[in-house]
């Protein structure tokens, strides 16, 4: 087993961006080109390595014991018996590649799109730190490690929104307090996520103290943060019982805020609307996935019984989210805010798939995550570029964009179609299979409930189509309004093309040939679901 397979490869993928961040910081402020190139190189290296990882990954090898590959397990903080345990399986692999992919494209896009206050040095460094956090979350197999990466993501995004964000004044309804959008959004994002993380950490600790290494051949009475071992114990029903309910509740809060699920979603539209373009892209493409991924990786396998008893609630919230977000979208006048709300709806489908606890559903969830990553990321790129040119996001004023910028309009149409789940493009599989799974969820879950939810979800797809098409009509179609006379509205430029073309290709590729994702996920997902079935005994 070479150095690459023994954990170095993954560690490089994760930490190269962090190194890159320091490298960028080391470059004098004046040398912007150098900073950009450095950031680009590190992001590129990380992406290429993740592709190599994808090549090295053995897609057939599920039989031999551990599901996780290319990882390592080293002493880290022995005081709390937390270890540097990393590794990937079919579930995390697509997300890992996605995160490095989107990071690279974001760096390319920023090349000539630095929001005020300019300062590329800090901005690029933040992107790279963010990259480390995101990639790390997907490879971490130790709860503390996971938590650290999960939180590392928080600060860069906070500063991105707070410093480079939208400077317009907003007045909070009811409270009548006026503040700068970016500050409000940043603080809201930070507090919300921190609130969730606190509960999440509580849940982790509870798991830690209830774990017992004796059951997995360790010293009896010793505790562990190791996800793999905890999963094993969860299978034995170690955590079953009254406390498990609260543990799951704590974890649920932590993850649901990040997803975000229905009642905890209000940070998302503000954060997205206020964030700089790249911020929204990374937020939509990767950060939201951390929550759903955590459900699949931690909540479900470790607490299967609770997962089953919570599934109906989660599914209901998910579908409420779908309908609710679609309706909210219909009321939006701000393009970026509309896209943000649409994310809530799409993640609703993902959560619905997860809540069915079937392999089809979880497969749907994962391809849904990847698809949402590329599609909504793309939509935010477009929204950013358009507001960059028009200096407004009011759809009412943007009419006739198709005439002013044909290519941009075409791409917008293509992506919107993908987002409303057009078959043959990436968005379709997640939606359709989530519904497919909810027709026949895991044994023991209420069929009538889930079938009702399936129909409601199907209605949701209609609403989705509705707001997307009306958005297109407002933005793209019609005659351009007179106020754009004589504005220099250059169409898609070189850097934008460089950043977008790969995403468009990915959207089409995943849609036409979904095995790009399923080929990796299927076995792993079936393994997870078998674990759940075994634990519940169905």
């Amino acid at each position, binding site marked *: 087993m070479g150095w690459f397979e023994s954990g170095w490869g993954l560690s490089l993928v994760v930490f190269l961006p962090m190194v890159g961040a320091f490298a960028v910081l080391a470059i004098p402020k004046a040398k912007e080109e150098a900073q950009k190139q450095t950031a680009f190189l590190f992001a590129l290296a990380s992406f290429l390595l993740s592709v190599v990882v994808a090549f090295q990954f053995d897609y057939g090898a599920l039989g031999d014991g551990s599901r996780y590959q290319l990882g390592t397990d080293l002493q880290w903080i022995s005081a709390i018996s937390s270890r540097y345990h990393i590794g990937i399986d079919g579930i995390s692999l697509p997300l890992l590649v996605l995160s490095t992919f989107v990071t690279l494209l974001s760096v390319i896009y920023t090349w000539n799109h630095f929001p005020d206050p300019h300062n590329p040095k800090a901005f690029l460094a933040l992107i790279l730190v963010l990259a480390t956090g995101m990639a790390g979350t997907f490879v971490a197999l130790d709860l503390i490690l996971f938590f650290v990466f999960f939180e590392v993501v928080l600060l860069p995004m906070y500063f991105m929104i707070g410093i480079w964000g939208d400077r317009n004044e907003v007045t909070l309804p009811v409270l009548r307090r006026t503040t700068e959008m970016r500050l409000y959004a940043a603080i809201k994002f930070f507090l919300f996520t921190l609130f969730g993380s606190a509960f999440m950490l509580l849940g982790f600790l509870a798991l830690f103290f209830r774990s017992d290494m004796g059951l997995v051949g360790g010293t009896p009475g010793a505790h562990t943060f190791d996800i793999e071992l905890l999963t094993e114990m969860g299978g034995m029903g170690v955590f079953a019982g009254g406390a498990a309910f609260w543990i799951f509740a704590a974890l649920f809060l932590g993850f649901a805020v990040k997803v975000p699920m229905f009642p905890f979603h209000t940070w998302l539209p503000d954060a997205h609307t206020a964030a700089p373009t790249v911020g929204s892209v990374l937020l939509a493409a990767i950060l939201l996935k951390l929550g759903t991924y955590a459900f699949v990786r931690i909540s479900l396998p470790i607490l299967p019984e609770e997962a089953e008893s919570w599934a109906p609630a989660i599914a209901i919230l998910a579908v409420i989210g779908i309908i609710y977000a679609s309706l909210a979208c219909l009321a939006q006048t701000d393009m970026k805010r509309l896209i943000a709300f649409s994310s809530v709806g799409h993640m609703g489908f993902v959560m619905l798939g997860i809540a069915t606890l079937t*392999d089809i559903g979880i497969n749907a969830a994962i391809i849904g995550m990847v698809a949402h990553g590329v599609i909504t990321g793309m939509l935010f790129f477009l929204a950013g570029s358009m507001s960059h040119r028009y200096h407004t996001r009011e759809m009412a004023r943007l009419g006739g964009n198709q005439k002013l910028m044909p290519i941009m309009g075409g791409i917008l149409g293509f992506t919107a179609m993908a987002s409303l789940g057009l*078959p043959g493009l990436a968005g379709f599989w997640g939606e359709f299979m989530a519904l497919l799974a909810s027709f026949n969820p895991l044994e023991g879950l209420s069929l009538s409930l889930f079938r009702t939810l399936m129909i409601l979800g*199907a209605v949701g797809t209609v*609403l989705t189509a509705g707001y997307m098409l009306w958005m297109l009509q407002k933005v793209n179609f019609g005659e351009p309004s007179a106020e754009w006379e004589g504005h220099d509205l250059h169409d898609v430029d070189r850097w934008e093309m460089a950043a977008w073309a790969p995403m468009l290709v990915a959207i089409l590729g995943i849609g036409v*040939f*979904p095995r790009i994702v399923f080929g990796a996920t299927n076995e792993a997902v079936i393994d997870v679901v078998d674990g759940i079935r075994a634990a519940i005994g169905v």
Partner: protein
Amino acid sequence: MTHLLASADRLLLAAEEAGHGAEEFADGGILASGAWLIPVVPMVVAFLIVFFGKRSPYKGWAMATGTMAFVALYGVVLFISNLNQGITYEGAVHLADIGTQSLGEHVGDIFAIEWGWMVDGLSIMMYFVVGVVGLLVFIYAKGYMEGDVRHTWFFASFTLFAGGMLVLVSAPNLIQLIVGWELVGVASYLLIGHYWEEHENSSAAIKAFLVNKVADTGLFIGAIIVGTSVGSFRFTDIMEAIAAGGGDTPLARFAFWAGLAIFIGAMGKSAQFPLHVWLPDAMAGPTPVSALMHAATMVTAGVYLIGRMFPFYMVEGFADEVRGIIIVIGALTLFLTGLLALVQDDIKRVLAYSTLSQLGYMVTAMGAGAYTAGLFHLFTHAFFKALLFLGAGAVIHAVHSNNMSDMGGLRKYMPYTFWTFVIGSWALAGIPVLAGFWSKDEILAGVQFAGSSESGFSIAQGGAGLANLVLVVAIAGAFVTAFYMTRAVWLTFFGTYKGHGTPHEAPRVMTYPLVGLAAGSALAGFLNVPGVTEFFTEGVGARFFEGFGGLEHHVTSIDWALAGLGSAAAIAGVAVGYTIWGPDRETQQARDTFSIPVLYPLLRHKYYIDDFYMDGVVRPVRGPLARAVNWFNDHVIDLVVNGAGWLAAVVARAVYFFDQRGIDGAIHASASVTGGGGGLLRLLQTGKVQQYAILLFAGTVILVAGFVSFAIF
């Protein structure tokens, strides 16, 4: 990535044959196994046109038409060889595994999604129609779209339109069918909204897309139910499950709802009442689009789908309860929409409503179990409806107006168009020996059989009375059809020209397709003269139902009485039309819509269905409901969030004031921060080094105290 490589060679190797009940038929050899080109080539070319069309000869037209020529050629060859020796072939390519089956007898097996191509009577017939009609329309389009804005883009999406339909009809499984289904939908969206500068055009496009999407949810749900309970989306597997018979299989249990849901999907695409509202508005697109959409590509999809799932609706114990609903919907559509055609001034809308009514015939036939008749009508209808639209297009091209009140007397100016149009209208009306006569007659016969005592419909469903009622409606519909077509012909080609300028005959590139289609409309009927020539029945119908003995009924001899009744109705329609519009040619303007007190306003407002959808559904959802949700979001949920933040700030300020009294500088430092209105950013921003230091040491002391106390106690 290894999996990608692995899957790549699997992709190459996975093409497998899965004939169903097809032992004694030829598998078509290379001809059938290569048929995957039929859907793939147009899809690829559509993309190529987007990127390279502008620089290609005739700015994309050549590429598009070449593609259609290829499809047409392939379709013709397949069609002929199928008529000689039935072909049943199914190729499949494994796309991905998406989990395990959870119902059916193979619980736990891998659940796969596939892409494939079906080569059997039904799909071959569709290849033929789409190919041939499509080719003629594409040729015609060269003349019609000359110098259009977005000329290239038009042909790209036009090719996508045809390609999507080919994906649909070549689908051997429900998922691929859905893919093609939606591709057709989006292509129609692009084409209907081709002139998106005007708001109403894009609105019409959105209307079409949304109405279809509503119906598609039905198809989704139906497909999900069927696929899950069979454990596979393959039609062959589904048919096996049906052939295995009803009883307590999952499929049988959900059959009714699945059948209903799938039929709702079909209602959307085939624009059945009450989901027909999108089709007339779809006239916003260029005329060739209407021609293709109405003749071959889009609206036939629903009928095709029912045909694909035919045994599911016929075999007892499955969705056969749905048959009654199908027949009723079909009958309603064919009659009500036929009446609507009477009051239209826009010639294209007349044709649109006539399409609706003809689709009603097809659906009725399907419901009645007359599989062959329904599809045969689809087949013939494709020719004369395309012909009529292209003729109307030529007229519009000449007079620059859609309204028949601006036309009249064009007979003299454009003879080709006139004669072909007349042939088309007669074929549509069902004047004997023209195509429409035969197919419509078979439908009537089929409905009559459904009412007769030996049909499963009347035995199991007790639907005899219903079927006979529908038969009457269908004959009345034949009358109405002839009536409004006569009106259209008269207002357009007879009397005096009421438009401006001097109209001129269309260029050759537009008239030749008309002639070709006219020939088709005249002769296509002879493919299936009951008892005489049964190519169509053999090729498309009977072979499909090996394993379902005597499932579908097709007339084996002409029922002269019924045929006479049908043609009598048609001729009567022509006659009445003539008596109304024929005599006084100058005052027809006053007469071109006759106003019967109650009926007329009802028809003018399209039975108020559109208004109901708009004011009853769409506006409330887009307006009040959406705004309410948004308000809830900002004022209720966010109130909690912001309220919490605000509360924190208040508390912080209180602490601040308290600490001002306090003498402790350390606390002062931190409190003066907390007091900053809850602003996190200002934490520790006094800038005074020593205050930091004080905090630092205080912290240290506390920590150490902790450790020490641990050590001691």
